[in-house]
Structure formats: structure tokens, C-alpha cells
């Protein structure tokens, strides 16, 4: 009894964290400005609602078994839809400028599972469902439910893999597009996906499939929910602080320009003069599209030009300028005997924060050491 109560309380922590994140996203959705943002907010609301449903199912499993039996279809369908919606978020964030619609086929398997579990819930008598969940009776219902659970687990592992692949493809593209090291890395997303698979899915599988050992561990349950809470927080935090860069699709005008070859040819001198006189890199959100617009050129051409002429990608190229700016400001401060915090200098030079400055610095360091 006490153990069950403790477990119920432990499982309600993720419910609370998901509910808090849901509230924050809802508060935020009033201010979403463009279509992509709105889409992301809608997805986040869906994901967090599903997570609230899912975790409250686990609470019921411990605190109110009868209610859980009635709740079972909702629990299962939320469990099967979560990975798909997470993948959908990844899909939107890692769009490489094509703006494809999310294929509907991804929703087929979870909906089939949902329909199946509703059919079971409506046709099977209560005792049989109770046996399948709480006792170790082996019958048709229990085997179907177990099989469906395994399918759900496989789904979540499969979609994690897909998401990671997409992130990898995105990373290859983004270095030629943006120079904001911190925002473009999407490390947090890969972290969430990996964390979910390793630490969350497996222990809960243990509980539902009735592996005896888990029951005896008692308070260790407390730790299995912490990763879930943590991922809820990290996901919400990064979406709210817009910690991502979405590649804009190539505009029709730009395409036209590329096709007709009607864009300005660049020279080293012109690019350097532009960068040195206007200092566009002081803006942390400076993108290759901004540069293309200012130089009346197109992004493919500029990216190829920088690669060819300077032997580095756009991201590295711009961050080198920023690093130089930091050095210049520092020496100037020393020269004038002014005390300026290094943070202020770093931010003024166009880094979005201290961490991206360090990353840029390390990149240069890693680059030069083997060359020597």
C-alpha cells in the first residue's frame, strides 16, 4: 500500500512537469508570429498533452487500478503517438529548406494500435482485462496487450533512430547557412531523443510487462522518472528560448535569379570590403541569406565561393570574423585602460552567448594544432 502510494507520487512528478511545460507553451502560443512557429507550438501542445495522459495513466496504474483498466485505451494510444509527434517536431526543426508536408503514413501504425486497443476495451469483459494487467494470467487479452506494448516500444526506438538520422542530415546543411553555433547545433534534441530511449522506455516496459524485480526495488522508482522530468524541461526550455535555426526555403525570386544566372559575381575584395565596412556579423542571427541579399547574389553561389576561396564553410568564416572582433575590442580596452567584462565584448562581437564563443574558439584551435 505504502509502496504503491509512493510509486503513484513518483509517477505524478512527470505529470506535473509535463503540465507545467504545457502551460508555458500555451502561454507562448499566443505570441507565435509565423506559420512555422505556429506549427511547432501546435506540435508541442500535442506532445505535452499526450505526455500528461501517458504519465497520469501510470499514476492510475499504481493508485487506482480500476480506473486504470478503464483508462487503458487512452494510455496506450498516447504511448504510441508520443514518438511520432516527437519525430514530427524534429521534422519541422530540421527542415532543409524544402518545406515538405509531414507524410501521413507515420500516423497509420499508432492509429491502428489505438483502434485495436479500443476494440479490446469494448469487447472483453472487465475481469479478463484486470487479469491481463494485474495478474499473471496467460490468455488472449494479455498476450495481445503485451504484444502491443512491444510494438509501441519498437515504434519509439524506430522513430528515435529516424530523428537522429534527420538531425545528422540537417547538421551537414546548416554549417553553410547559419553562423550561430549555439542555436544551430540542436544537440539538445539529440540528447532528448537518446535519453528517452535509454532511460525511460526500458524501465517502464519492465513495469507493464510485469518483470518481478522492478516491484521489489521500491524507492529506486524515484530515479526512473527523473530523466523523463528532465527531458520535459529541456524540450520546453529550448523551444521557448527558440534554440533552433530553421532554414528558409529558397524563394521563387532567388530561384529565378539562379536559373537566369542574373546575379552579381563576387570577388574576394568585394566580400571582404562588405564584411569589414558593414560588419553584418555583429548580428548574432546573421545568415547566408542576409549576405546574399546585401551582395545581390544567391546563397548557393556565396556558399560555394566561400568554400573555394577561403577553404572553410560559412559558419567558420563568419565566426573567424567575430573572433577577430573580440581580439580587437579586448586590445582596445586594454589600451584605453577600461574595464569591460569579457562577456560584454563577446556579445558585442556577435556571439549569442559565452558558450558559442568558446565553441568557435575551440574549433579554430582544433583546426590549427594538427596543421603545425
Amino acid at each position, binding site marked *: *500500500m505504502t509502496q*504503491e*502510494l509512493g510509486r*503513484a*507520487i513518483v509517477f*505524478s*512528478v512527470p505529470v*506535473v*512537469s509535463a503540465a*507545467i511545460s504545457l*502551460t*508555458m507553451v500555451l*502561454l*507562448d502560443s499566443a505570441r507565435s*508570429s*509565423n*506559420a512555422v512557429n505556429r506549427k511547432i507550438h501546435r506540435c508541442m501542445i500535442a506532445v505535452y498533452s499526450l505526455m500528461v495522459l501517458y504519465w497520469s495513466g501510470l499514476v492510475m496504474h*499504481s*493508485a*487506482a*487500478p480500476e480506473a486504470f483498466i478503464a483508462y487503458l485505451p487512452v494510455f496506450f494510444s498516447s504511448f504510441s503517438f508520443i514518438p511520432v509527434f516527437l519525430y514530427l517536431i524534429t521534422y519541422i526543426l530540421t527542415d532543409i529548406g524544402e518545406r515538405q508536408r509531414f507524410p501521413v503514413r507515420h500516423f497509420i501504425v499508432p492509429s491502428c494500435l489505438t483502434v485495436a486497443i479500443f476494440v479490446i476495451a469494448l469487447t472483453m469483459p472487465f475481469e479478463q482485462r484486470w487479469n491481463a494487467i494485474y495478474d499473471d494470467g496467460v490468455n488472449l487479452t494479455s498476450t495481445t496487450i503485451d504484444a502491443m506494448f512491444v510494438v509501441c516500444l519498437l515504434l519509439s526506438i524506430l522513430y528515435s533512430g529516424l530523428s537522429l538520422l534527420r538531425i545528422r542530415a540537417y547538421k551537414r546543411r546548416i554549417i553553410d547557412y547559419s553562423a550561430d553555433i*549555439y542555436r544551430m547545433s540542436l544537440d539538445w534534441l539529440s540528447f532528448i531523443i537518446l535519453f528517452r530511449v535509454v532511460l525511460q522506455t526500458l524501465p517502464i516496459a519492465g513495469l507493464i510487462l510485469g518483470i518481478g524485480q522492478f516491484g521489489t526495488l521500491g524507492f529506486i522508482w524515484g530515479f526512473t522518472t527523473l530523466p523523463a*522530468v*528532465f527531458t520535459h*524541461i*529541456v524540450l*520546453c*526550455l529550448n523551444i*521557448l*528560448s527558440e534554440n533552433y535555426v530553421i532554414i528558409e526555403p529558397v524563394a*521563387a525570386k532567388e530561384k529565378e535569379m539562379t536559373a537566369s544566372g542574373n546575379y552579381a559575381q563576387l570577388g574576394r575584395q568585394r566580400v571582404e570590403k562588405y564584411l569589414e565596412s*558593414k*560588419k*553584418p*556579423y*555583429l*548580428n*548574432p*542571427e*546573421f545568415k547566408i541569406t*542576409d549576405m546574399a541579399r*546585401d551582395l545581390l547574389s544567391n546563397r548557393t553561389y556565396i556558399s560555394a565561393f566561400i568554400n573555394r576561396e577561403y577553404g572553410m564553410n560559412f559558419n567558420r568564416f563568419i565566426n573567424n570574423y567575430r573572433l577577430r*572582433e573580440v581580439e*580587437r*575590442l579586448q586590445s*582596445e*580596452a586594454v589600451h*584605453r585602460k*577600461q574595464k*569591460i*567584462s569579457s*562577456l*560584454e*565584448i563577446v*556579445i*558585442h562581437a*556577435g556571439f549569442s*552567448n*559565452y*558558450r558559442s564563443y568558446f565553441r568557435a574558439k575551440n574549433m579554430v584551435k582544433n583546426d590549427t594544432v594538427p596543421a603545425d
Partner: protein
Amino acid sequence: MKVHKDRNVNFFSKSDYLVRHYTRPCGREPYPEYDFTVPEASGTSPQPRKNDTNAIDMGAYATYGSLMVYILPICCSVICSVFALLLIWNYRNLAERKLRRVVSLYCLLTAVWWAATLWHAYTGDKVFLPVDIPFALSFVYIPILFFNAVYYLTYLGNKRNFSALNYLLPVPVLALLLMALAAIFPRPEGNIAGLSPAERYTLLFITGPFLRFATAAAYIVPTVLLLSRYYRQTVRQHVEADRRSLSLQSSRWLIVLFVLSVAILLIAFLPVAVGTSRWLVRLNAACIMAQVILLTYHVVRRQYLSYKTADSFPVTGKKAGSGAPAGRQHHAPEEQYAPLNRKKFEAYIAQRKPYLNPDFKLTDMAEAMGVNRTVMSSFINRTYGMNFRRYLNLWRIEEYHILMAHPSKERKDPRKVMSMTGFKDSRHFRRATGLEHAYRNRSRKGTQTDRKP
């Protein structure tokens, strides 16, 4: 107190739940405002046996419910604290970092407060619990931390740092006050005999409802002062910055936050006056959750003016960035001091199309034309008979119609075209077209003049 305990002994032994009934005696009560009753289901049902599933259900569920009233705010505050903590390393200026630290601590202390309340609710009524010292400290420091958070939220740059005296003073002052009180009104030694002086004073502090809320009451005044000064200043800035996106409206939440915090204190204080009620505890929990979430959300979203002060880079920076204030996309043309005329102005608008940028402001325009804001504004007013905003929107609407009429855009989503023409969202677009319609009707009725630029 001893008497009270004896009287309640057999009552408690009836049920070995964590939860017990707590009747309010007529004598002096240590924590009168916390009502520790459980829903009737668990209080009246006999102790459940393991094999009786139904009884377990009822009992477990009811106990769970009553526990959650306390656990929800604790979880909520701790999670919000983690939110603020994870943001500490991603700051844009030092005030922001301090703000996040303070908010994180504030949430954590709120959690401590409720955890201590929970502890009191579910342990026997010993005279002194080890958790009492953090409990007392949370009463002292929650209002101070709140004041500090408001201080950084309303930070407008040119102020002094938050003085550490706010944190250092209260404890000695309160200790002195308590000693004086203890000296003036000596209390019977009976139930506090085995305690060290520190513990004794803590107990005295917690049992006195007026003492407990002393710091809270003392800090309401400076918080109100801060807020009112902030609003006066933002109104001024607001006028100066020509309706910049950070409008006064977006900082209205600060008032809600303040009202919530006062409500929390009042609800915590009310039982002293009107007696305990389960609903008061629930209401208090709800208020705490709302406040903590609201605060954290706005800290995460940077809905305050203070981070803008990052622009105020010292002289070196200004010189270095000459004319490039953090990546403006529209730069001053070469002929900086040429007089402003209509032809040049329209040429600039038509060629550069600055209105395609939704964030384009009057100050940007003035900068591009090499004049100051007032001159720019009065020029537009005089020449076109409308304000800058309406003028820009006219251009945007025209661009929209051109794009929609363009053959290649035939199957285009009007929303996409809208965002391409520089409208922030469809709401702005609808408002602009509606206003234009109204203007046009009015002018047709009145002077019959075409006001199109």
C-alpha cells in the same frame, strides 16, 4: 500543549495513516493555519487489508489526493527552479544571470516552505522539528527574494546593485526582536525545556503569526515602490521609442505576479484570523503554482526590459561599431546630410523596400535618411498627412496586391504573401486593411480627396 497531545492520543491511534485528523483546540496552537484533515473516505474507513482490493483503492486514492495538495506545489516549484537554473549559463548580461539565480532560489525556497508544511502535517505534533529552522528561514527570505527578483526584472541599467544588506540584516534584527520579546513576555518553560536557545527562538518565531509575516509585510512597500517607478520609466521610454515592440502591455504580467504574491501571503495568514479550512490550503497551493509558473515563463521568454540594456556598450564599443548597431540591415546612404525631400524619400522606399522588414521602425528610417526621429516623423506627417505606421502599411498593402495579382503567385497562400510583404501576422494585416478602408470612406464622404501617396 502537552495536554492537547494527550487528548489527541487515542484519536491518532485509531488510524495508522500518514494522515490524521487535527482538531482545533481552544488553547494556543503551534501551527493553526495548516489544516491537516483528510477527505472523509480515508478518515472513516478501517485500516485496509492487503487482500481487500477495494479498500486499498479507496484508501490509496484518498491519501494520494490529500498528499498531492502539498506535493503539487513542491514539485511545481522545484521544476520551475530547475528551469531557471538551466538557463543560468545562457545569459546576455550580468543582471540577467543574477535574475535567473534569484528566481531559481525563490522557487526552491517556496518548495522548502511547502515541504516543511507537509512535514508538519504528517508528523506527530512534537514541539520542535529539525525542519523548523529552514521553515523559519523560508518565511524570512521568501519576501526578500521576491523583492530581489522584482528588482532585477525592473532593472533599467543605471541603478546600483542589489544591496546584500537585504539578506544580511533580517536574521540578526529578528533575533534581537525575539530575544526582547522573550524577555518581556516570559513563557512557561514546560514544553520547550529540552531545546537550545536557537531552537527556542525559532519556535517562538514560528508560533507567532504576526512575527512570521513581519518581513513579508515590511517588503511589500519597497516592492510597490519599485513597480511604480518602473512603470513611470517604461511609460517614458515607451513614448521615446515610438511604440517599440516591448510595449507596456507586455510587462503587465508583473502586476499579476505581485498581486498573486500578496494573495499567497494573505491566504497563508488568513487562518490565524478566520480559522482553518482545507480549501484555503488548496487555494494557496493553486496560487503558488500559478505564480511560480508565470514567473518562470516570463524569465524564460525574456519578457522584461532589462536585457535590452546589453546595448549600452561602453564608449569603445560604440566607436567600434560606428553606425552598425548590432546588425541593422538598412544602412545610412552616403549622402548623409542632404536635406530631406520627397523625391529622395520615395526613391529610397521604392528601391530598398524597407517596409518588407516587419521590424522596420521610424528610427531606422530616420537613420537611413540621415535625420533625427522628430524631423522624419513631422516630414511624413506634413507630406502625406498620415503617420509613419500607416504610411508603411499602405506600401505593404500595395505590395500585397501586386504580389497577389502576379501570375506566378496565383495559387499562393495569402498568408505567405502577407508575411512576404512585411506584415508580422494576419492580425496586423487585417487591422491595417480595415483601418485603410475606414480612412478612405471617411475621406470620400468628407473632402473627396485621394489620400494615396
